[in-house]
């Protein structure tokens, strides 16, 4: 397991790094509008009516952005959670925790693909 983790580390780090970078770049607007502006009524709710959301989400660019919005934060999150765990003295259990967290991110990523294909 340790060995496999080591082998995958560059890939994980790439996803993690992009999670911070592109993830942050993408999330800011999403959280701003979908998480705050629309629910608070600052932007009318029909901006993301089902039809419009379908239209945006089925466009190829829309799909790519949505994929990024899911996959990248997941890996950023999983990797940082692993670090938090290590920082609080969890080095001994890292062989367990790290695979679990990455598995979480990986399954989320797979589901993301499915979800996006389903739109």
């Amino acid at each position, binding site marked *: 397991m*340790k060995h496999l983790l*080591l082998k995958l*580390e*560059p890939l*994980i*780090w*790439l996803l993690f790094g992009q999670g911070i970078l592109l993830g942050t770049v993408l999330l800011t607007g999403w959280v701003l509008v979908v998480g705050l502006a629309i629910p608070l009524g600052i932007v009318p709710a029909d901006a993301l009516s089902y039809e419009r959301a379908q239209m945006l989400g089925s466009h190829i660019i829309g799909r790519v952005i949505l994929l990024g919005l899911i996959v990248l934060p997941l890996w950023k999150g999983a990797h*940082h959670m692993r*670090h938090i765990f*290590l*920082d*609080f*003295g*969890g*080095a001994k259990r890292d062989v367990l925790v790290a695979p679990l967290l990455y598995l979480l991110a990986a399954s989320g990523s797979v589901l993301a693909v499915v979800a996006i294909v389903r739109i």
Partner: protein
Amino acid sequence: MSDGQQKKTFVVTRFDPDRDEAPRKQSYEIPVQPDWKVLDALNFIKDEVDGTLSYRWSCRMAVCGSCGMMVNGEPRLTCKEALSQYGDTVDVGPLANFPVVRDLVIEADGFMEKLTSVKPWIIRAKERAVEEGPMRQSPAEHEEFKQFSLCINCMLCYSACPVVANEPEFLGPAAIAVGHRYSIDSRDEGAAERNEVFRGEGGVFSCSFANECSEVCPKNVDPAAAVNQAKFNAVIDWATGLVLPRGGDE
């Protein structure tokens, strides 16, 4: 400057493995001079008050890297830190994140092993003969690694890095900075070999970019930059390795 009146109290960590179960604190109140560094105070204590206090030092000009200690909880070169910036009580302890040998002396052999493991020497496919003279290197090429060649191995960065504290395998900021310094030296051909090390256990990916190493580095080496550049290079090297598998002895 002959004002010998001013006094400060030094709360110093003491530990003698043959006598003490665990480290303890000892206070010394001593007269200090306005232009003293922290190290001067320790030397005064050693000479005049308590000959049993142990710590390392040599150059007293911030270049040999031996006098690192925790001063009021921050890793510092004691020969460089002016005493005047501290209040009436100064706490001096051994570097954090290191096993303590005695008093203010920490175990440095672990660091030496890490430093050695990054292959901090020029690697070339074919060694150049002396007769061929010096290699050429433009000032711009020199500039690329210059900052990372300034590390004095004082290990302050290790005392600040949370990953060092919790992952014993981690090579740590200075060792990686020194290795990376060679990898980006235009005269070196060993980057691939070092990337193997960097991608190995406790390698560059263990770093979580806390940047604390760079905050405390007394020589502005910016080891955080080095470690994270090394990550970048290690990934690129890994990715190209996937696309163009390397031959056995290329």
